[in-house]
């Protein structure tokens, strides 16, 4: 927010966040019509999110800013705004929530509550992707956690209890670390005439001039690095980064598939977003200090995620670990930015990597959500089966399902012409010149992922058809209609990545210009 923030008279971001909450209140009381209410709400939200995306400031700075005092004595403001990064995440959240509601066509148990929770979760996503003040942001970060917990706990699979608890405890521990770190910053930034600050722009400005570290050291001693580690850990759990990932396979597998779509498609991006919006601007020098271990963990996330996916027998766990692998590329791209590099070529590499990270966030969101949607369909059609070995030869009874799921799988593999490729290519293109060892080792992740995806295709679509799949119905008309725009989007981005890059790139340039690592 350097320079004058573009303020818009109409509080569109507030409206965007309030809309799902209103929808949730209505859904709660509309019983079996709840899904209809949720559909209407999510479609309206998507329209609003697209409106935000279209009216984005072309300069890449914050636009549509809303700023009002909230609790001035605590340095808390109601402060919202979007740039290319957050607007893209808004669109992604809206798309994924709509897909999730669309996929949840068999909720018989308390549908009102189910869809109300989904909509509250959407509000939490919107809120945390637009907030520019820690307190405000944290409110929504937590707000999204609670519905996710209950959605797993109440509608999940056989071992939902432990899975929900594990998910909650891990993320909560991360949240506590975040909260403590920001309280420390708040205390440290207090001066004689002003209360401390929790505003991201203010804190990152102080950080970029080196004042923040001095203030923290003066008030609390040499703890800045520990604060950074706490914040990083909070986000690392959410993404997740190895070794903070152990909650994920159980949660993704036990959650009902539409909820898994939300977890992996949208909520995992909150972690990556937090790294970009909060951790790097405020803790740049500290991250640069520990960049080598961070890069090692990122590479481990890429390679071991893929390797673990190869060892799974349960489709949901395969895709869960493959999500770990895909988000590992984001971590790789982010931490490579902290490697010292000067000159215009280095800047181009950093811009490529960061563009790639943001594209990858979006693409992984759409693709992973679509994959879990297909898993939901497979489960519905076979009475809950989801083991790789329990399927076979589905191409015969269900050619359309096989064809479309094949496209989504190839998007996940990173095939050129589909959305998954561009982000990964840009990440590798950037990281290679910043940290070539990390990039080279991570290529292993690409190869193992390819093997995993091809194995899934082979086992599920070819070979003999098992007995319970003989009467396997192909995609119904409604499902085809629902899936067509998703596939279309994958092709569109694959062929014309410029559609996203042109709005993201100015933000990337702006962010890189303001970040300071050394």
């Amino acid at each position, binding site marked *: 927010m350097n320079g004058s923030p573009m303020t818009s008279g109409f509080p569109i971001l507030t409206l965007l966040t309030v809309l799902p909450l209103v929808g949730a209140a209505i859904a709660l009381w509309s019983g079996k019509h709840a899904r209809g209410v949720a559909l209407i709400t999510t479609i309206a939200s998507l329209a609003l999110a697209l409106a935000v995306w279209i009216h984005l400031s072309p300069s890449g700075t914050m636009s549509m800013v809303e700023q009002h005092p909230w609790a001035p004595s605590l340095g808390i403001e109601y402060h919202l705004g979007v740039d290319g990064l957050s607007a893209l995440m808004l669109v992604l959240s809206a798309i994924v929530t709509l897909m999730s509601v669309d996929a949840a066509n068999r909720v018989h148990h308390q549908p009102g509550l189910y869809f109300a929770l989904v909509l509250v979760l959407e509000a939490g996503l919107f809120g945390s992707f637009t907030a520019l003040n820690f307190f405000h942001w944290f409110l929504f970060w937590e707000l999204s956690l609670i519905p996710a917990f209950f959605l797993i706990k109440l509608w999940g699979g056989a071992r939902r209890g432990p899975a929900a608890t594990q998910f909650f405890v891990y993320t909560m521990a991360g949240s506590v670390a975040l909260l403590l770190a920001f309280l420390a910053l708040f205390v440290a930034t207090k001066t004689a005439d002003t209360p401390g600050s929790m505003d991201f722009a203010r804190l990152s400005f102080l950080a970029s001039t080196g004042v923040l570290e001095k203030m923290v050291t003066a008030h609390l001693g040499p703890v800045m690095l520990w604060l950074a580690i706490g914040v990083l850990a909070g986000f690392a759990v959410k993404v997740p980064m190895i070794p903070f990932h152990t909650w994920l396979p159980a949660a993704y597998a036990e959650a009902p598939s539409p909820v898994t779509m939300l977890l992996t498609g949208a909520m995992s991006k909150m972690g990556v977003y937090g790294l970009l919006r909060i951790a790097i601007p405020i803790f740049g020098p500290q991250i640069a200090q520990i960049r080598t271990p961070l890069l090692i963990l990122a590479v481990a996330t890429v390679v071991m995620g893929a390797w673990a996916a190869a060892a799974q027998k349960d489709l949901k766990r395969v895709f869960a670990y493959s999500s770990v692998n895909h988000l590992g590329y984001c971590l790789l791209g982010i931490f490579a930015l902290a490697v010292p590099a000067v000159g215009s*070529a280095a800047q181009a590499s950093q811009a490529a990597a960061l563009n790639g990270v943001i594209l990858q966030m979006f693409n992984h969101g759409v693709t992973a959500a679509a994959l879990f949607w297909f898993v939901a369909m497979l489960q519905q059609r076979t009475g809950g089966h989801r083991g790789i070995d329990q399927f076979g030869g589905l191409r015969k009874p269900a050619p359309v399902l096989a064809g479309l799921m094949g496209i989504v799988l190839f998007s996940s593999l990173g095939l050129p012409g589909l959305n998954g490729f561009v982000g990964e290519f840009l990440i590798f293109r950037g990281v*290679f*010149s910043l940290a070539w060892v990390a990039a080279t080792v991570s290529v292993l992740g690409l190869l193992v992922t390819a*093997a995993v995806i091809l194995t899934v295709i082979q086992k599920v679509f070819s070979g003999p058809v098992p007995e319970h799949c003989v009467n396997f119905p192909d995609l119904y008309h409604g499902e085809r209609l629902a899936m067509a725009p998703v596939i279309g989007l994958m092709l569109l981005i694959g062929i014309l990545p410029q559609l996203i890059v042109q709005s993201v790139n100015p933000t990337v340039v702006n962010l890189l210009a303001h970040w300071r690592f050394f």
Partner: protein
Amino acid sequence: MLAWTIYLSFAGALLEAMLPALLPKGRNAAARWLALAVAVAGLAVAVVGFIAGMGPNQVGPVVIVDVPWVPSMGIHYLLAADGISRVLVLLTGLAAVAGVLFSWNIELRTNEFFAFFLALIGGVYGVFLSFDLFLLFVFYEIAIVPKYFLIAIWGSTRREYAAMKLALYSFAGSAMVLIGLLAAYATAGSHSTGLVALGHANLPVSFQMWAFPLVFVGFAILAGMWPFHTWAPTGHVAAPTAASMLLAGVVMKLGAYGCLRVAIALFPRGLDPWGVSFIGIGSWRDVFAILAIVGIVYGALVALVQTDFKFVIGYSSVSHMGFVLLGLMTLNQIGVTGAVLQMFSHGILAGLLFAIVGRIVYERTHTRQLAELETMHLSKRMPFAAGAFVIAGMASMGLPGFSGFVAELQVLVGAWTVNHWWVAAAGVGIVVGVAYTWRAMQKAFFSDALPAAHVLEKEHSHPFAAITWPEVTGVVLLVGVSLFVGLYPKILLDQIEPAVKALLAGGVQ
């Protein structure tokens, strides 16, 4: 103009995939004719483009289309063609038409088969016409998927194993290429992914020294370079006939093309002597030339002892592709020209051989075991196939009058000026080549061995199905092209030579 080969093929693939929605009945016939129409249209475009390229002025690449794709990353949608591209696009067009003709009997999910087939063709056209590295990589990767499905769904012997092996080898190769290309950007500090721009970047010699082998091997995996060739025989054998034709005919050429267009053109100094020499090997050039020769001799020797007719052809491809790689490593005008001509020639001949073995013979005898074919007296019962194989075999041995002769001769002449021993060793491969072709021909068609009595009863009781028109057309097309190029190689050489000259002058001295 030539860009339409790509668009036509992908549009055809899309139409084929949507055929069930458009046409409830008579789908298989429609799918065949549609595929033939698309392939012929593509060939027509390729021919027109080829003719337009004739003329003395066409030296460097001619830009066909150049629009920004991802401008902030310097990525362009840049298609261009020089003589090498035009010749290989022509080959692709011919292979596509022949492939459709020899797939005329596919009854299983015909439209899907042709959808994958045309998508593969489209990707191959794309690689040969891309002059932006990003774009080239995109098409290169796109081509991997359809060949996986063609083998995994319509293949035979251990098809899933073969399909997976092929896909993983291809992905591993492209990962190596990717690393090399990204490193090239990083080192050049270039803000363009254009081949020409990067070629002028003056990359440091020490960098080229390690980037060259990485990218070269990455591509050479797909060209069947020994010892990374093992995907080729299993893949060729498992693939349905049309896919074997494409694999050996054009997909292996993608690898060789990448070696030339990307590895050699971008990193020419990577071929410089190391300064030290170890048992006569003093540069990457020596290393890869020796691997190429090992491939020539090894492929031929292994082909000599195969019991499965299709494996003979599969290993012969490894041997013939060795000549392409050897030609590239001569780095002189005549040798590299020979390598490109050999790509064309082998593309035609491998297609022809696979068509005879996999389609014409196997579909009637239902065996590919030479020991069983021996007892069937095919020269009498299937004279067309026997005649076609004799011609194809002679062409493949490198008899004068056929395309293979001119190509291999040029490679050997080029190699002679570099190292006599290379020629001597490769010559052994040619001799063994004659032997395995002769052996296979003898066993499959001209043997007098008598079958066991009960087999005689069974096998000879019914005549083989008559040869169909698509088979005749396909054989005539491929034999005709090989003969024409053998008798009048100038038509291709006029295009290849200036392009090779320009490419070599770009870096290699």
